[in-house]
Every structure is written in structure tokens, then in C-alpha cells.
């Protein structure tokens, strides 16, 4: 997503000036994507350069209005109709990289990492849910943004669960000739360490 398309979509509704665009953008997205005003003006300048918007003059109070052009409208339509690309190359997800390194690094307790991350992400999930509880029926756009954050957090937690059970299985397989007890024991040791 680009700020560019966001602003363009707002201008497709009606001509607006910079500050208005910023306020409207934040109101619609629940301020999950805060904009600074400088960013808004730079984006408007580029949109103008590319022929997607044109200046619509000044309202006498110092507000410089912008209006969308036909090319701009076509661009908005294209944006709405096209799926958002998955990040390419694969997402540089710090957590995935951290776990990948932790698994091979000597002396790192992977279970401790996944547990700490899960608790952290669960707290965020609780916060999103609280914000959702407070939202009213009129805040549907904002609620959908929150739902998106909630589902993403949930996906991360599910992935952490998956990592843990996968590692437990791998470890169990590695210790198979002996017994699976030592493994279980290792879990317990950890559990005691992290107990609150």
C-alpha cells in the first residue's frame, strides 16, 4: 500500500487540501498509519507531477486545494481492483529470522523465545480487542482495521504454537533410542524458570 493511493482515493471523492487529507486519512484508518503533514505535501507534489491531481486554487484562507484528474481516477480504480502483492522477496520478518538463528545457535533456549513472544503478542491482541469493544456500530472501518490486526496477531501465535510442537517432535525423534522422559523434563525445567 502506498500513501499515494490512499490520498488519491480520498481525492476521488472530492477536492481537498493537505491538512484535510491527513485528518481524513487517519480518521478512516483509525490512525494505524499516522501521516506527517510533510509526507502529505511531498506526495501531493508527486501526484501533480505525474498528472494524477491538479491544483484547484486557494480558498482565501490559505488552503491549497487539489482535485483528481481522469488519469488519477483510473489509477484509483486500478488500485481497488488489484490484489495487494505479497511482499517479494519473502518478508524480512525479524521473528522468523530470530527463531531460525536461535535453533542453530548453541545455548539458546528456543522455548523461552517463543513463550516470551507469544505473551507479548497476546497482550497486543488483548489491547486490540479492548479497542474493538469500545468501538461503536458506526466505527465499521475502524473495526475492520482492528480485526485485521487481531487476525495477524492470531496468525503469529498459531505459528509460534506450530514451531513449538514441531521442535518438540524433532527433539523427541533425536532422543528416540533412549527415552522421551528427558525431553519432557527439559520442558518442566523451563516452565519452572519462567513461572510467575
Amino acid at each position, binding site marked *: 500500500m502506498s500513501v499515494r493511493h490512499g490520498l488519491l482515493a480520498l481525492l476521488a471523492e472530492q477536492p481537498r487540501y493537505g491538512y484535510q487529507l491527513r485528518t481524513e486519512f487517519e480518521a478512516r484508518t*483509525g*490512525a*494505524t498509519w499516522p501521516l506527517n503533514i510533510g509526507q502529505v505535501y511531498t506526495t501531493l507534489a508527486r501526484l501533480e507531477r505525474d498528472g494524477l491531481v491538479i491544483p484547484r486554487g486557494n480558498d482565501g484562507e490559505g488552503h491549497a486545494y487539489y482535485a483528481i484528474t481522469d488519469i488519477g481516477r483510473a489509477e484509483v480504480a486500478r488500485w481497488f481492483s488489484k490484489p495487494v502483492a505479497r511482499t517479494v522477496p519473502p518478508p524480512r520478518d525479524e521473528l522468523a529470522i530470530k527463531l531460525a538463528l536461535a535453533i542453530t545457535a548453541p545455548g539458546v533456549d528456543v522455548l523461552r523465545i517463543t*513463550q516470551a513472544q*507469544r*505473551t507479548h*503478542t*497476546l*497482550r*497486543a*491482541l*488483548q*489491547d*486490540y*480487542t*479492548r*479497542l474493538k*469493544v*469500545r*468501538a461503536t456500530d458506526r466505527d465499521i472501518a*475502524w473495526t475492520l482495521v482492528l480485526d485485521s490486526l*487481531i*487476525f495477524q*496477531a*492470531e496468525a503469529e*501465535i*498459531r505459528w509460534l*504454537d506450530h514451531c*513449538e*510442537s514441531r521442535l518438540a517432535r524433532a527433539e523427541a525423534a533425536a532422543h528416540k533410542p533412549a527415552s522421551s522422559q528427558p525431553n*519432557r523434563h527439559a*520442558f*518442566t525445567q*523451563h*516452565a*519452572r524458570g*519462567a*513461572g*510467575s
Partner: protein
Amino acid sequence: MTRSDSQPILRMVNVHRTHGRGEAAVHALRGVSLQVRPGELVAVMGPSGSGKSTLLTIAGGLDMATSGEAFVEGVPLGSLSGRDLARVRRRSVGYVFQDLNLIPALTAAENVALPRELDGASARQARREAMDALAELDLGDLADRFPDDMSGGQQQRAAIARALIGPRRLVLADEPTGALDSETGEAVLRLLRNRCDAGAAGVLVTHEARHAGWADRVVFLRDGLIVDDTGGQADAESLLEGAR
């Protein structure tokens, strides 16, 4: 939401639960302590076999601790006679379990009213409360249907209405949204949340983080021990600064 000054409705102290003995003993719980106060909803998460459901059945007096004690509204469950225990279960505790246990020969309203009638409420009073509970779950129109004539989701909601009817102050839920789509599931959690906000204590066992998000506190079980706890309520504002 969390009223730390009030007495806990549920208090579990160093609860152990062992099935079998000797070599074959399985330690389902190995020293769990947990308090849930009025107004508080606590979610319990953890892998399969970590002891989540055992915790819930002991909290509700459906199973007994091998050692340690569970208190509901200050009453130690382990010391009660069968009859007294049944009364605590009926009066103080509402259960929403995975298997719904609706009685097929009774209508939705009769199912929901049953615990109140067993409690000695008049049939008319019980019926009125049941209708309110059903309406709260959007089931008012189905009050006189039998479970077999209801969809899985409707049965689930009727079971929840039954768990929430009357003045029970401890609500125990084990994967309460099992048969429901995500929208309806959310409505159930909202209801559970409201019930807790109104002063009940709730314990929600779930493997879905999205559902645990409705709780004030999430505890994590592994191998019969609580290994982590998200703690009390953080300030939502700190997360999305000035969003609302």
C-alpha cells in the same frame, strides 16, 4: 475492569490432579494456583494435554483435586458432601462445555430454565428468566423448538443461555465457540465479556488466541503448570497512541 480489592470468586491453591498411580500415573495438574475476581475474565491457553480442561472441571467441582484446594465464593469444594457440592455447582457455577448436553426431550426454553427450576424457582419465574437469556442470544423465536430442530450454532447458543441464566457468579467455558462461525463466535465472547463486566468471574479455556484476546488476563499452561501470564490490563492507548 479488574477489581483487585474484592475477594476472588474462584481461588485455586496449589492444585494437583493425578490420574492413576505408580509408574502409570499421569500428572494432569502439578501445582496450579489461580485467582479470578468479580469482573475478571481469565483465559487459559496451552497445548493439548497441558491440563486446561482438568483445571476447568476442578474449578467447577466436576472433578476433585488430588491435593491442594479449589474455593468457589470462599467455599472449599473438596470438603463438601455430594449434595452440597451439587448445590454449589447449580447455584454458583455456569458451564459452557464443548459437548452441549442439551436434553433432547426438552425445548430450548425448558433446557435453559432447568437449572433455575432445580434451584427452586417457580416454573413461571424460571421460564421468564429463560426467555430473557434466550433473547440475549437472539434465540427468542426458537424458545419452543427441540434441540434436534435447531442448527449446531443455535444449540450452542442455547447451551450458553443455560450457562448464563440466573445469578451464577462463576462462568466456566471450554471452547465455547466450537460450532460457531467467527461472527457468531464473537457475539458469544462479547456476551461472556458483558457477564464478567457485570460482576461475574469467568474462566475461558481456548486454543484460539483471538478468543483469549477478550480476557483481562491470559495464563498459559504446559505440562500441568502455569508457565506464563499476560498480567493485568495494560493501557490500550499505549499501543495505538491517540487512535481514539
